[in-house]
């Protein structure tokens, strides 16, 4: 009899939470993530199979029932689904018009919220995060300190910060420092 080893998936920083008066930083719950590259025709068929439109305009996102599509480049998107597994999202039929890669476990995410969330993020992110320049629904790949992140504004004072899982402790520490500076 051979026994099959069972692998247990670990989630980086599971259950992490840090809060000051003005900023709350939490580890986001596990989610399915797809990295998508597609031609114009591929976008049409993928939008149909995913059930939400892949936005064509720079820095825009679309969402539907816990599923988000983030514009990253002229032919690149990130799809995040907070409920389903990635296997359920990937189209059954391959195509020359698009590539869909499951990156669910490459990334992890933080939810940064509170009145001074933008100020805490600006501790490491050089972008203008005012509501005018980065409105609700805006998303973009950018830098946070030395780590590359994908920043997505889900509410007036709520941001989702996607980073690679190996960068998570660094992003967490820098976010906490930023949050502490706000309080002072």
């Amino acid at each position: 009899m051979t026994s099959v080893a069972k692998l247990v998936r670990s989630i980086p920083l599971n259950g992490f939470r840090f809060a000051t008066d003005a900023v709350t930083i939490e580890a986001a719950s596990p989610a399915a993530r797809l990295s998508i590259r597609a031609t114009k025709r591929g976008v049409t068929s993928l939008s149909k199979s995913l059930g939400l439109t892949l936005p064509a305009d720079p820095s825009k996102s679309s969402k539907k029932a816990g599923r988000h599509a983030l514009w990253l480049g002229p032919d690149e998107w990130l799809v995040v689904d907070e409920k389903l597994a990635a296997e359920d999202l990937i189209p059954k039929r391959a195509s020359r018009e698009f590539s869909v890669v499951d990156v669910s476990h490459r990334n992890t995410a933080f939810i940064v919220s509170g009145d001074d969330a933008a100020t805490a993020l600006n501790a490491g992110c050089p972008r203008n995060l005012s509501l005018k320049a980065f409105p609700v629904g805006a998303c973009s790949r950018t830098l946070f300190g030395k780590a590359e992140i994908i920043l997505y504004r889900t509410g007036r004072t709520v941001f989702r910060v996607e980073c690679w899982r190996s960068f998570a402790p660094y992003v967490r520490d820098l976010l906490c420092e930023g949050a502490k500076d706000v309080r002072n």
Partner: protein
Amino acid sequence: MLLIHCPYCEDDRPELEFANAGQAHVVRPSHMSEMSDEDFEGMFFIRDNPKGVNLERWRHIHGCGRFFNAVRHTVTDKFLKVYRAGEPRPTDAELAELLK
């Protein structure tokens, strides 16, 4: 910090998101094996180093990931114009106009 306009994101972004990618409009020859050593050296290694207007490739590496071209003044560090990869080199008259 410099703000650089990305023609694909259609927005001004901090310079940290960008990487310089050398001289723009360097044409790769179609028959490289037939080139003389001197011509190859000129094409492969020798680059302009002007004081003044410079045409450069840039990559929005921590953003949309795209390469694009820019006209930058090497003394003032000012970006005079950015345009998408594949678009023609600005004419000398257009460059002179940008400097005004």
